[in-house]
């Protein structure tokens, strides 16, 4: 069984496309992650000039990195040795997400993910993104599939 730190170390996404700083909880049924959007994230320069707002697609990615990538690595780690887990990447398959608020530079978000199903390396999770004060920003259902990385 992988620890939260081991799972974090195995997440392939890195800066500037890494949207998970900490895992606050992780087990077979759920994952809770946290990320603080830095003021110098590259996308703020264009979204929008002089009025930076975190793009919705980045918020979806943030939900997926906790709800699919981290939780998927943990679940795969229950079935496969660590070396095998390290050779697997989670690819996005489908999602339905609704937004209620915006996230500004410097804000910390929390992702609460609950597993809907995990089968044949496909993971579907219900995810909720919220601000530090508990305000819900977005919620939905996301799915991804673990596939073996191409040998290079």
């Amino acid at each position, binding site marked *: 069984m992988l620890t939260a730190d081991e799972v974090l170390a195995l997440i392939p996404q890195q800066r500037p496309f890494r949207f998970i700083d900490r895992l606050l909880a992780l087990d077979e049924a759920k994952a809770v992650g946290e990320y603080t959007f830095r003021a110098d994230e590259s996308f703020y320069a264009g979204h929008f000039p002089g009025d930076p707002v975190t793009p919705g697609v980045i918020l979806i990615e943030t939900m997926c990195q906790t709800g699919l990538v981290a939780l998927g690595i943990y679940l795969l780690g229950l079935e496969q040795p660590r070396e095998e887990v390290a050779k697997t990447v989670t690819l996005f398959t489908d999602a339905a997400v609704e937004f209620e608020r915006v996230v500004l530079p410097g804000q910390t978000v929390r992702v609460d993910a609950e597993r809907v199903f995990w*089968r044949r390396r496909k993971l579907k999770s219900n995810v909720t993104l919220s601000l530090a004060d508990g305000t819900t920003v977005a919620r939905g259902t996301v*799915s991804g599939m673990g596939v073996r990385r191409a040998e290079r």
Partner: protein
Amino acid sequence: MPQEMVFEKVVTILKPFVKAPDALAKVGMETTILGELKVNSARLVDVVLEIEDAFDIEVTDTEADKVSTVGDAVKLVMAKAKA
């Protein structure tokens, strides 16, 4: 449950995942799920889980791997429902 009803129910389950409406309009037992109906292979797990719930059966991964056509799915459901 008669085969025609199982067929209709399987097609109803597949419908939201189908990307080829023309093939769906003339769907039959021989229609292939991935090739003709153009269902995304990453959604097959969703289809299997919906079939399990709809017919109250359990389908193993090996059994699911053998399903290629709508008819394969219908026959699998009929065999499982009988068991």
